[in-house]
């Protein structure tokens, strides 16, 4: 086994998950109650709706050293506020493209629709997200380290 590979196996990423209060947060809860296992790399921040997500939050997470970011909300049509997630979808599409265009590595930024009944999907997506971020390795882009100035 090469040194590099060993390191990436030991690497435990920090992933910030922004979960909609009305669905994915419940999904996470259900996954927990149902004792579905997924690795503990995820730090959850509850948001009122994916429509509340600002690109600032995602950039701030990366700036502060998150290795991955995952945003999850209600399935289209199920928004508690009728269409918050549908407006958000356009923002996410454009932001996702923008960040990848300026050099965000694939596998760092994830979006999903998970309802509060989908404990299993939550655990599955969590595993996918964690695996993808692990594969991408420690994040060095858009990260604010100790200030680099004169």
């Amino acid at each position, binding site marked *: 086994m090469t040194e590099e590979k060993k390191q990436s196996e030991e690497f435990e990423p920090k992933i910030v998950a922004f979960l909609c209060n009305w669905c994915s947060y419940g999904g996470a809860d259900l996954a927990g109650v149902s004792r579905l296992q997924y690795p503990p790399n995820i730090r959850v921040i509850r948001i009122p709706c994916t429509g509340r997500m600002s690109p600032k939050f995602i950039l701030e997470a990366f700036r502060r050293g998150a290795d991955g970011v995952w945003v999850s909300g209600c399935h289209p049509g199920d928004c508690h506020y009728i269409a918050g997630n*549908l407006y958000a979808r356009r923002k996410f599409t454009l932001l996702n493209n923008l960040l990848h*265009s300026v*050099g965000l590595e694939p596998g760092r930024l994830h979006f999903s629709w998970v309802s509060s009944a989908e404990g299993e999907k939550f655990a599955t997506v969590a595993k996918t997200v964690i695996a993808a971020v692990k594969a991408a390795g420690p994040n060095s882009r858009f990260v604010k380290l100790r200030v680099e100035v004169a």
Partner: protein
Amino acid sequence: METRTEKIRETAKRLLSEGKVDLVIGYRAGTIPLRTAPYFARTVEEAENLIWNSHCRINLANFLPRRKDRVAVTAKGCDARNIVNHIIENQIRRDQVYIIGVPCEGMVELDLVLEKEGRPIQEVIESNGKLTLKGRDFSTSLDRAEVLRQNCLTCAHRNPTVYDELVVDQVAELEGVDRYVDLKELLAQSDAERYAYFQNLVKDCIRCYACRDACPLCYCHVCFVDETMPQWLGKSIDPPDVMTYHLLRAFHCTGRCTDCGACEAACPMNIKVRQFTRLLEKDVKELYGYEAGLSLEAKPPLTVYRPDDPQEFIK
């Protein structure tokens, strides 16, 4: 150009003397060659200072938000599109603004001229598509077409989309221009290469925010860079802070940017900041079929949705 100048003055004088507007926003001659300055003519005499030439790069729509008075404004294709934005976003009422449309044949890139002619330029004379540059013991000339701004070379809307009158006949729109050739090449590169490209792009940024301040879209009372609780980004020239600024600035222009190039014209460090906004502009057009400022009726893309909007990237 001379015709445009004359017609603009004529119109401005008429509007002011008839009391139709309180002021006319246009350009005056720069105090140094290759520049103009936004000018606010309030009297018929002041209207005599209005001009039009190849250096009207700053977008005058920028001076409209939150105005209480009735204004006339000279508008190129891009300026007019930004006025449409303002009307849609309730920054000014349509009946408050009199649009003096100026069909445009492109503006000259200042940095390109300075680069091509290394010596200090004392005087510029413009005629028949040529710029004659004069300096201490020299005089040379450049074709206007050689030194047009990149956004003007690929502009698809040179004629004002909305106007109250036009000062000259409409100009022919450019046909078959691919606005995004360079971006497509860039996007074909690896993520590491793109990351390096954009990091390098903003390495000279001094955080003066001229790009923001010259942008007609940036009219928030408190910009995110000035927010303190929480403070979203550091104020130093540390690369991650600089990049965060540019990304968020560009994102705030999503679906609203007309690629007028005022940001680049204003940048003292010659940073190609349009590269960020163009990425978004391209996506908005390709994904949602929207171009900003073409009509007063169309809904901006982030204020609407379709049930079948693309979402392949969402798990």
